[in-house]
């Protein structure tokens, strides 16, 4: 037993030292868990679906062997269902409606072997269609209870744009698994949404009309505020951690370059001046530098530059065509064209490098994988995967070495943020 504990500790140290190293975790070392429905007189279709969502969340945590079978049980009991007696843990929930119309989800975590409750709490949902987020919150709480690495991204919202038809794209708010989706903006070409505040009440997005224009949409007030316009193109590529600065790609002189936009003063400062393509700026080193995509060597690759100085450094030395990136501390995840055949089915894959080492970690191997974005805590990467005619949202758990795909039923994902 002590050997196992030491081995797990050494793995944690390994994660802390370099996330670019692949780690395989043996499934039989992790505890087992099942989800039971203790709802009474609640719509069975919803309560059964809730079990499926929560089971899926627990699988994404990648810390348990999750039993998917649906079982009902009495909420107040500390005994597992007889089919789940071999489990280490049971999560049991009870959905109910308050007199005020609020959906309440009671839940508890049971040690199935000892038949005792370890944690009991509840989640309130103001609108019934948001019950998906209650399931995610329970998984988040359970993860926190066991002291596993934070998965704050699991309970947050995703904003994405989806192409519907030529020159027509919508902006949609969803949960990380695309189970919940709400159409926010439709009509015309609406692209590149980016969260504008920590509470996810507002987001930036570009409308490509006669002249591309960046707007800030506040979902609580319903107001669209015009931020800036540019001829040619305009994209908000990144928002600083304090939400006070934006990195934009725009082309007031028909030349795509990266600009730093100050939200308070409305000033835009040009950061790159190369005559080819500079695009996709991402804040780096606490906002002192930024990573970006440039074809200044004759093909798209990832570079870095200081906000205050003109020194440009090549960040990536692997890949023939690296055309998007995301950063977290000293880590860079980027998209790379994998083969000389531009149109083969595995032509774009995700890789991760560290500015501290030369090791390249390969994160995907099939399909067309694009637009990676680190979670705020660096725990996971969200990305877009196109395979044949399917468009999906993908999530990679870096430390757990696992990835998950959530297909989009309507349209094609254009870009996303979380």
């Amino acid at each position, binding site marked *: 037993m002590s050997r196992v504990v030491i081995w797990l500790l050494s793995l944690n140290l390994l994660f802390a030292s370099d996330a670019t190293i692949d780690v395989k975790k043996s499934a039989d070392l992790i505890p087992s868990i099942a989800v039971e429905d203790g709802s009474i007189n609640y719509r069975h279709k919803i309560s059964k679906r809730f079990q499926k969502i929560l089971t899926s969340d627990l699988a994404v945590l990648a810390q348990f062997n999750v039993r998917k079978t649906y079982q009902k049980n009495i909420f107040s009991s500390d005994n597992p269902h007889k089919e789940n007696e071999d489990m280490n843990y049971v999560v049991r929930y009870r959905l109910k409606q308050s007199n005020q119309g609020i959906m309440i989800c009671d839940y508890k975590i049971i040690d199935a072997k000892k038949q005792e409750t370890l944690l009991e709490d509840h989640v309130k949902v103001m609108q019934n269609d948001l019950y998906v987020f209650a399931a995610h919150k329970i998984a988040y709480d359970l993860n926190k209870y066991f002291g596993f690495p934070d998965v704050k991204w699991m309970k947050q919202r995703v904003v994405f744009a989806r*192409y519907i038809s*030529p*020159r027509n*794209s919508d902006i949609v708010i969803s949960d990380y698994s695309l189970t919940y989706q709400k159409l926010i903006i439709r009509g015309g*070409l609406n*692209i*590149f949404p980016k969260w504008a505040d920590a509470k996810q009440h507002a987001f930036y997005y570009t409308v*490509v009309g006669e*002249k*591309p224009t960046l707007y800030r949409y506040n979902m609580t007030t319903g107001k669209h505020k015009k931020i800036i316009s540019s*001829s*040619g*193109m305009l*994209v908000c*590529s990144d928002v600083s951690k304090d939400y006070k600065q934006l990195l934009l*790609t725009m*082309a007031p002189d*028909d*030349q*795509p370059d990266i600009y730093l936009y100050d939200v308070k003063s409305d000033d835009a400062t040009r950061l790159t001046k190369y005559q*080819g*393509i*500079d*695009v*996709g700026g991402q804040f780096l080193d606490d906002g002192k530098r930024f990573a970006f*995509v440039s074809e200044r060597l004759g*093909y*798209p690759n990832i570079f870095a530059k200081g906000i205050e100085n003109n020194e440009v450094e090549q960040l990536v030395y692997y890949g023939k*065509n690296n*055309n*998007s990136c995301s950063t977290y501390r000293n880590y860079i995840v980027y*998209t790379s*064209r994998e083969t000389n055949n*531009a*149109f083969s089915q595995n*032509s*774009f894959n995700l890789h991760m490098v560290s500015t501290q080492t030369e090791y390249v970690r390969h994160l995907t191997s099939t399909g*067309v994988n*694009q*637009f990676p974005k680190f979670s705020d805590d660096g725990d996971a990467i969200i990305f877009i995967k*196109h395979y044949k*005619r399917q468009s999906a949202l993908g999530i990679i758990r870096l430390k757990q070495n696992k990835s998950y795909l959530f297909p989009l039923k309507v349209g094609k994902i*254009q*870009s996303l943020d979380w």
Partner: protein
Amino acid sequence: MRGKIILSTLLAAMFLISGCGGKEAVIDETAEKSEKKTDTESSAQAGVEAEESSMLTAEGEIKSIYFDFDVFTIRGDMQDSVEKNSEKLNSDDVKGYRIKIEGNCDEWGTDEYNYALGLKRATSTKKAIVAEGVDADRITLISFGEANPKCSEKTKSCWAENRRADFKIRP
């Protein structure tokens, strides 16, 4: 817009139903009003329609410029189209109009890079026709990245059709 159309149709239906009950005059009155246009209005309308028609005709005669994969320089085989387009854009019936060049890409690559690539294709096209004598001040550019495909099949020839710069004639 669709809502407005449905609403208009419903209003028209209500009038028609009311008309059966003896309010035919309302329908007649509306019809009469729409027909009573002054000569000035009619000629102005005709002028606008003629201009639109002229622009559309010119636009139809101007060819798109096509590009190789991940490239924004003008191909040698596109030079003939560049010259003929420039000739048309400088002709007497078109030279009074503004020109909008729209850059487009195929679906490969990240869309943000594609918007920049589309813009560079539009820029190369602008430089090429300016070199042929078209006034740069008449030209504006926009990129649609991969958002404006001509062809939606998953074939090489289809993707080649989407790597292009289009010309639009504007008043």
